[in-house]
């Protein structure tokens, strides 16, 4: 798994090393990247509010790629078209995808182990 921004690792870099991609091309993720334009996870607040009653940007999720735990607001969000793609800020794995089209929304969170949502008691 690779990190989306700069990839020149130094001695202080504690990021996990890239993991091979599943499938026939294990080297496809092990590449450097140019800086990309993204927003933080707060960009998901509006689109997710169309689906959920609570603000999920403060909810904490765990990345299935590297185990990093953090709020949705920390994710790096690309889009909005063709859909919103939220990536782990530490390993670059896709954590969440949200496509809004026609009369439906598609939400894919397979990059997240779980989501801890604080609820007022």
């Amino acid at each position, binding site marked *: 798994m690779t990190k*989306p921004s700069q990839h020149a690792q130094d001695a202080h870099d504690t990021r996990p090393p890239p993991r091979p991609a599943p499938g026939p091309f294990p080297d496809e993720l092990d590449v450097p990247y140019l800086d990309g334009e993204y927003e933080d996870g707060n960009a998901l607040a509006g689109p997710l509010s169309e689906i959920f009653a609570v603000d999920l940007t403060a909810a904490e999720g765990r990345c299935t790629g590297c185990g990093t735990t953090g709020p949705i607001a920390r994710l790096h969000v690309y889009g909005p*078209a*063709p859909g919103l793609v939220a990536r782990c800020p530490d390993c*670059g794995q896709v954590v969440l995808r949200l496509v809004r089209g*026609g009369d439906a929304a598609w939400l894919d969170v397979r990059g997240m182990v779980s989501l801890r949502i604080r609820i007022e008691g």
Partner: protein
Amino acid sequence: MAIVSRGFHGRRQPSEHRLPPGQYEVRDFPVLSAGPTPRISRDTWEFTIVTETGARHSWSWPQLMALPAEEPLVDLHCVTKWSKFATPWRGVSMDTLLGDVETEADYALVHSYGGYTTNLPVADLLDGQAWIAYGYDGEDLAPEHGGPARLLVPHLYLWKSAKWVRGIQLLLQDEPGFWESAGYHDYGDPWREQRYQGD
């Protein structure tokens, strides 16, 4: 030189081009991305077709350059509703690359550097319909548009024309790619406006 009042022409509109339903024309070349742009060196670049039996057919950059090149002039149609007419590409036909590949597969899953995938029928890669494109408008294909090389399948919505192409997996059963597994249409014909699942 003909004297023509621009006012009578209004917006320049190539008459030989048609817009699929729901599309509008653009003159620039928008860049949409689902992640950061991979920076792939031609020294290490490789394109590989993997058949359903696991047989691999690979081309390095010099080997790709040694193949006959074509220069398709095609219209592009993005599912986000923009279309761009008469885009000039340079690349190798998928007919050439698949020519010596023995396969019974009907489906293809295209893989890109960076992890992107997209699926389409093998038939849509053949008969002069698809290329591995490495040049655009007389220049090397820029990274933001998929360079060093991308798949070009202009008769389908542009998300099928995978940027930064790494290889193609030939499959006996259809397997949805990155956007196809998140609500977008499995086939993506712009003339039938197949944008989302169920269209």
